[in-house]
């Protein structure tokens, strides 16, 4: 009887394997059948500085010309639509090509702003006591679309609300930073995506709303509002073709049907192309000549354009999302200095949970066909064929 139950227990262990034992350490335990895809941003770029979709199995046909946010942004076409909410009747204007365009939109109204830039707004006709004749000059930072926010920005208008509390803080000489972001899926409570707003005045002292928002999602707008008075010249003397100098108004007013689109007063450095563009893994259409490294516009293959010690440019690592192969990274400093010894072994532990889990690549394909064999007279023709 003892061996009877021993055999039964052994059979149970064999049948169930170690599935019941895994998952006891940490939170990254995945079943062998569960896979975790990289985030959308990485799906668009198989490797560091290598472009193209997916795990690189699409070969020469890969590289969608993309109606992607990045492609559209590169073409200068992506814009973010903003709706102004809160103070009903308040007028919104902006700086357009050096001119101050007042009263362009009225709350609730909406306007489009090109992405990756900073705009100077002017808020006038603010309702409430004490705001008569007062204008506020906030700046609006419009972040470029990210793969996480591209779908939202292409389909939704981003709400920008100015509340009574905001005005109260401004009148008390406080600066407000208002961050509108799209929460990451794990930080969203419901299945339908919606934006969230972080305001500096509602956070604990020392907490940066931008850093906080970047932890929770992807930033789309940053509004910075204070009570500084901006002095725009009402009239400027402009030389005329005939040599004379005439006064020209530098103010556009929507009430006079003078409308102008907002233009940036500055670009966001991260979106100015400071990072070299990604290298296409396999470019060109079928039949077209392949790009040759170092010839023509094709950059030299393998040039160290990556700033990270392990992010070497080169062929995409397969399977996508797998760990880098570097086992050790050592820098020896042999300079004769009377200084403390530099760190000779650098260890950086990084971990995110759950880690990528990709299926094994296909190793074996077996294909067989069976054709029916009929004797004369066996084949029946379907009616009507």
């Amino acid at each position, binding site marked *: 009887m003892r061996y*009877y139950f021993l055999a*039964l227990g052994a*059979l*149970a262990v064999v*049948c*169930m*394997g170690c599935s019941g034992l895994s998952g006891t350490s940490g939170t990254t335990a995945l*079943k062998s*059948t*569960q*896979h975790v*895809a990289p985030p*959308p941003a990485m*799906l*668009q770029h198989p490797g560091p500085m290598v472009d193209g*979709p*997916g*795990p690189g199995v*699409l070969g020469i*046909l*890969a590289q*969608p*010309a*993309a*109606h*992607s*946010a*990045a492609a*559209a942004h590169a*073409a*200068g*076409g*992506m*814009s973010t*639509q903003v709706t102004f909410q809160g103070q009903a009747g308040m007028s919104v204007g902006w700086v357009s090509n050096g001119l101050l365009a007042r009263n362009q939109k009225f709350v609730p109204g*909406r306007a*489009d702003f090109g992405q990756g830039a900073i705009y100077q707004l002017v808020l006038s006709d603010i309702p409430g006591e004490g705001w008569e004749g007062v204008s506020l000059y906030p700046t609006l930072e419009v972040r470029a*679309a990210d*793969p*996480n926010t*591209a*779908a*939202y920005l*292409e*389909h*939704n*208008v981003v*709400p920008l609300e100015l509340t009574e509390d905001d005005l109260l803080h401004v009148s008390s000489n406080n600066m407000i930073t208002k961050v509108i972001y799209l929460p990451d*899926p*794990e930080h*969203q409570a*419901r*299945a*339908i*995506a*919606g*934006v969230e707003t972080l305001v500096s005045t509602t956070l604990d002292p020392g907490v940066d709303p931008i850093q906080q928002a970047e932890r929770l999602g992807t930033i789309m707008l940053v509004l910075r509002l204070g009570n500084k008075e901006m002095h725009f010249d009402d009239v400027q003397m402009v030389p005329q073709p005939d040599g004379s100098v005439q006064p020209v108004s530098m103010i556009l007013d929507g009430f006079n049907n003078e409308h102008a*689109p907002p233009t940036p007063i500055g670009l966001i450095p991260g979106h100015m192309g400071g990072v070299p563009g990604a290298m296409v893994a396999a470019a060109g259409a079928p039949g077209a000549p392949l790009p040759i490294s170092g010839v023509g516009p094709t950059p030299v293959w393998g040039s160290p354009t990556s700033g990270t010690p392990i992010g070497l440019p080169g062929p995409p690592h397969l399977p996508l999302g797998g760990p880098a192969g570097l086992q050790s990274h050592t820098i020896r400093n042999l300079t004769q200095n009377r200084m403390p010894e530099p760190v000779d072994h650098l260890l950086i532990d990084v971990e995110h949970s759950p880690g990528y889990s*990709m*299926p094994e690549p296909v190793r074996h394909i077996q294909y067989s066909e069976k054709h029916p064999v009929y004797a004369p007279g066996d084949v029946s023709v379907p009616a009507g064929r």
Partner: protein
Amino acid sequence: MKQPVFNGILLFLVALTCGRTLAQDLAGSFQPLNDRLPPGYNAEILRRVRERDPNWLQPVRVDLPTTGNVAVHNGESAATATGPAPAQFAASPGYLYRLHISDLPEFPGVSFYPSVELLDRLHPPTGLEHQFPVPIVLTEADLQAAAEGLLVTRIIYLENPRLAASADPLKGDLPLSGEQQRNAVAVASELGRPMAIIRLGSRQPAVEGTTAGFFGNGGQVGPSNPSGEATGFARMSPVGQIRRVAAER
């Protein structure tokens, strides 16, 4: 006496470890497509990977809660086709299109611009192509959520015949709403073959000039008119419930 007990335990263990359901099998597959990729990206990849008949135009039918007007854009600000709901048109798979929904009695003065990312095609019997359109059903709840500033994403899939025999989405046997954390295309792939991604929000075309790609990326659009009695697709009832047309006939 003990032999039947042993056999029963053994059978239970084998069933416990080997008795995987279809959904479990499908849940383990890897889905490189993702609804959170930028609009048009999934369709573009599928268009390049799958060798389809380039002349095939997939009929698509747009259903609104009650009445309304539907216009189809395939890359230009001028509509390619316009008609009252339920409106039907045909379009090339693998492209992104933009609809203009207007004249809704439930939302007076409000227009919606949902996008349709057509991923795949159907294979209906020859001559009956227009009787089996891809149904795009926009419910009043969807439109209300969009008007409130939310982004509604719907994945339309052709149900897996192995599941269709026992599960009916209209009866709630299949999930009609996925978790936000999950890839919606992967969820749809577990239940069938994803046909289209519908994204609905509150954004309007820019007054000063349209955003590049807002109206789609150039797929071909043609007419599609069902001849004869249309059957087999879902339709909105006046109270906003989805019902199956064929089931009531």
